[in-house]
Structure formats: structure tokens, C-alpha cells
């Protein structure tokens, strides 16, 4: 039985948790509050943790200085396409590695996992040359195809495989007796049961694509094709210096959907990772 904590211990514990929370919460708090401060207040000393003057025009400037709606759309549809593509590929590959016996399955799985060890910076130049030859530079294709067939998909395959390994064999055998073939077993039995793992794959794939920075910078050159992380770097003055408050307003808008998705789906995210045996 769990021992009940005394009120004093409880207060001490919550106090400690609040202190530990500061490094995680402070950057977000600073971003949101600074987005409505005049620039001089951002750098004021002593620092203003609560804004003294509010300047809401920063948000309208975000949309005036860049095609921000278009860039928002770019990020959203690219992340959605990458998420759907990764879910399809990783669930099928994960199922195959977990449930289908074929020669060298474990060796092939190890080779696939090795993909996680190659930093994306190493492959970016050859990828650029490849997409240049294919006429896909300054299009969104590289930002969709590279994650779907790259490291994020490998990680997602690993997560899905770890989940499918835990499904009882008898379920599949019952389905075989019930008249289902391999694909239908995957589609009707395994996949519906894999919802928690699939949800976590969806969340971290979406986050990865949403936050992608290096690839857009390398592959995209026109402002109307930019994604949000790349667009954030464009809020500069005539001398190239950052317009901090506008940039932070844009950053707040960029982080908003991710925060909402994470708050809604954090249970699935943690459950899905728990299935992999990995810690978050």
C-alpha cells in the first residue's frame, strides 16, 4: 500500500516540482510575453517577467512582413503528408518485421535501424544533388520524401514493430481460422489494436516535420514556399538584425498548434513510447 504523504511533505514536494518546472516553462513564458512587449522592454534590466506595456501590433506585422498564412499552410500540409506517409509505411514495415518470418529478417531490421545513426547533415549534400537532378529543388517534395523514407520513418518503424511483437499470436491464428488472409489480419486486427502506438508515431512525426529547419533552408529559396521555422528567420530589419518582438510573435503562432496537439494527445504519446520500451 502506498503511504499517504503528510501535508508538510506534500507542500515541500510540490514546491520542489515547481522549482524544477522553471527551466521547462520559462522559455515559453518569455516567448509569449515578449511577443507583446516593445523591443526596449525585452532587453530592459531588471527583466520584465510580466509586460508593463502591451504592443499587439506585433501580431499584425507578422502577417504584413511575410506571406505567413501561405507559410502556415505549407508547414501544415507538409507535416500532414509526412505524418500520413510515415504512418502507412512504418505500420506495414513494423508489422512485417514483427510478424512475418522471412529470410534475414533480423539482419535487415538491424540495417534499417542503422539509418538512425546517420546524421541528416551528412546526407544533405548528396540529397540536394539528387533532388536538383530530379528538378525538385525549391519544391516541397524533398521535405515530404526525405522524412518518409528517412530517419523519422525508421524510428516510427521501430516503434510499430515493438508494438506488434507484443500482440498475442492466438489473435492472428483466430483470424486465420475465421478466414482472413495476411493483409486483412493486418488491416482488421493488428492495425486497430495498434492505435496507441500509431498515435505516438503520428505525434512525433508531425512534430519532427513541423520543426524541420535544415532541409527547408537547403531545398527552398522563395518566400511563398517557406515553412514556418524558415519563415521565422526572415523577420529582420534593414540591417539584418532580428525584430525580436515580431519574431517571437511569429514563434508563438508557430508553437500554438503543436502545444494544443501535445496537450490533447500526451496520453497516447506516453503510452506509445511505453510500448517501445524506450523512455521519453
Amino acid at each position, binding site marked *: 500500500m502506498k503511504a499517504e504523504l503528510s501535508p508538510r511533505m506534500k507542500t515541500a514536494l510540490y514546491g520542489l516540482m515547481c522549482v524544477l518546472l522553471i527551466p521547462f516553462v520559462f522559455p515559453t513564458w518569455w516567448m509569449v510575453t515578449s511577443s507583446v512587449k516593445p523591443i526596449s522592454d525585452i532587453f530592459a534590466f531588471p527583466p520584465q517577467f510580466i509586460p508593463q506595456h502591451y504592443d499587439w501590433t506585433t501580431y499584425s506585422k507578422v502577417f504584413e512582413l511575410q506571406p505567413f498564412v501561405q507559410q502556415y499552410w505549407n508547414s501544415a500540409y507538409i507535416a500532414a503528408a509526412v505524418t500520413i506517409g510515415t504512418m502507412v509505411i512504418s505500420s506495414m514495415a513494423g508489422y512485417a518485421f514483427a510478424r512475418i518470418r522471412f529470410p534475414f529478417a533480423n539482419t535487415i531490421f538491424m540495417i534499417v535501424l542503422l539509418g538512425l545513426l546517420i546524421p541528416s547533415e551528412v546526407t544533405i549534400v548528396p540529397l540536394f544533388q539528387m533532388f536538383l537532378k530530379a528538378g525538385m529543388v525549391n519544391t516541397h517534395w524533398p521535405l515530404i520524401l526525405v522524412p518518409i523514407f528517412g530517419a523519422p520513418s525508421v524510428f516510427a518503424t521501430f516503434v510499430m514493430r515493438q508494438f506488434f511483437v507484443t500482440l*498475442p499470436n*492466438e*489473435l492472428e*491464428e*483466430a*483470424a*486465420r*481460422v*475465421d*478466414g*482472413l488472409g495476411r493483409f*486483412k489480419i493486418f488491416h482488421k*486486427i493488428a492495425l*486497430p*489494436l495498434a492505435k496507441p502506438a500509431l498515435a505516438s508515431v503520428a505525434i512525433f512525426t508531425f512534430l519532427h516535420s513541423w520543426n524541420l529547419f535544415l532541409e527547408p533552408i537547403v531545398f527552398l529559396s522563395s518566400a511563398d514556399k517557406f515553412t514556418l521555422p524558415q519563415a521565422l528567420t526572415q523577420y529582420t530589419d534593414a540591417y539584418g538584425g532580428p525584430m525580436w518582438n515580431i519574431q517571437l510573435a511569429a514563434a508563438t503562432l508557430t508553437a500554438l498548434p503543436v502545444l494544443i496537439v501535445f496537450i490533447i494527445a500526451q496520453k497516447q504519446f506516453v503510452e506509445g513510447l511505453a510500448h517501445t520500451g524506450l523512455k521519453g
Partner: protein
Amino acid sequence: MAEVTLSNVRKSYGAVDIIHGVDLEIRDGEFVVLVGPSGCGKSTLLRMVAGLETITGGDIRIGGRVVNDLDPKDRDIAMVFQNYALYPHMTVATNMGFSLEHRGTSKAQIAERVKWAADILGLTHLLDRYPRQLSGGQRQRVAMGRAIVRDPQVFLFDEPLSNLDAKLRVVMRGEIKSLHQKLKTTTVYVTHDQVEAMTMADKIVVLNGGRVEQIGAPLDLYDRPANQFVAGFIGSPSMNFLNGTITAEGFAAPGIVLPLPETAHQWRDRKAVYGIRPEHFTLDDNGVPAEIILVEPMGSETQVTMKLGETQVTGVFRERVRLSPGETIRARPDLANIHLFAADGGQRLN
């Protein structure tokens, strides 16, 4: 309904033989139980009939048709698994109708069949629930419902009661038996529990090490076991065995001479194993001396552990006996129920 025939069925994993040529005839509508200790190959054999395991040699026929290379779905069988194997994301009704849905049956017919099966098994009020909302016994009934809804030629049960507690197991045993009496579908049932085998089967197949030790009606196996393995496996508490030699005076076991039937003298001077079931001892002043070691009153009977010469045996007495450890009693073996087995190989002699 159909008969099932296994002819010289074998199974190997690489160089390791698991099933060594099993021959078995199961008549139409018969309830056959495959029983044996863990690792004897009974589940493998059942899974070979189901088509979930390939066979290395021989033929399996269902309804006269060789099914060696057919998928499970084409064998017209239904199987109940040890862990129920209900689809967790489907309701009871969907679980039960799932196989029909994939065989192109109309929705109206599926609903009708599911209702019929649910009525038989008392599941009507549970049709909208999910497996996680059911007790063990209810899940087991749903698994049976899923099997009967399709009206297959053969039912296969793979240790279906082993996850239930002792009391529920007795209830479900009765339900499966009465279901079989109602539907009269050919049934192959695997268990390691000889009580289940004895109470349910029309015919028992005792397996050991991938070989059939004996096939027969439950009481035939009990009364005339073909060898020492079957004699020891069937019956609870199990048969007592004493090693010794058949002599003119009787059976000479270490420290004691036990009486033998007249017919046993044809094997005089032969080393043998003397087998006697616990209930075939009677308290009698003309019996052999037995030192009491342990007394276990069960209410309906008294189980007594005692020493016959140097060998410890169990006796079961129906009457209320007042015995205490250390006391010496006289117990008479019932000569009509003595089993003699060859000392080498354990085959039955008498």
C-alpha cells in the same frame, strides 16, 4: 459434421521429431480428447488438424477430403483457444459474427446466427459489451459462440478451460459437454487434465512424447490401461506401482509379498510392476500389513498414505475410517483389479 482421419501424421522441426506417425479415426459427431503431459505434442497435433501448423508427413482428412495443404479457413473447422483470442476492439456480437462477415454472409443472416448462438450460450445480454468488460467464464462462452456460429464440420478446443478457476472449470466442462450433446458436431479437445478427459470424452487419446500410448473409451482406459504410462496418467489419485517379481507365493515386492490372481502365475519368475488403484484396497483382517503415514479425510472418502513393505502407496477408503499415523492396518488389494506391467517397457501383461 464430419469424420476426421489422421494417417501416419508426422511433424519435425529440423532434425527433431515432435509427432512420430499418429494414426487416429474420429467418427462423425464424436467427442475426442487428446490428453497427455506438457510437451507430449497434443496441441501441435490439434494445430496440425486446424492448419495452423504444417505437417511433415502423412495425411489429415476431414469429411473424407485430404486437407494437408489447405488453409485453416478452407478446412471448415472452428477453434477455441486457451486464451480465448477474442478481438479486443470488437463487441461480443462483432466477435461472434466476424467469420461470417468474411464469408460473404448477409447482415440479416449474421444477426440471426449470432442471436441463435447467444441464446444457446446465455450471452444475449452481453452482445454489446467488449471482451475487457467480461469475466473469464463469459469470455470463454463468447469464444465458444464464435466457434458455433459458423456451424463448422469440426470443433477444435485447445485447453480452453486452463485459465479458469477450479469451480468455473467444472461449470464450463458441463456446458461444453451439453453443447456437444445439443449440436453433435465432431469435436477434438486438447487438455492436460485427465479429469476433463475422463468426464467429457467419448474417446480418449493418450499421447506421450509425440506417440499415441492408447486410444479408447474413458472407462476402458481406466480399467485396462495398455501400459504403465497410461495407468499412471489416467486416474486421480494415480495408480500405485510396486516393482518386484512374480513368484509362486505372490508378487514379491521389497519387504512384502502381495496376493496375485490365479492367471498371473503364467508369468512366474518374471520381473514386473504391480499396479493397483487407491480405491481398490479394502480394510480386511486377511489383508497385508500396511503402516499408516498420513491420513487425509476428504468428507466423502479418506485418503491414506501408507507403506506396503518398503514402498509408499495411497489408499482411498469410502467409509469413515479412524486411523492415525504410525498405526499398522491390514489392507487387502482387490484381486480383480490388479494390473501387471512388464518391468522392461511397461506393457500390460494381464
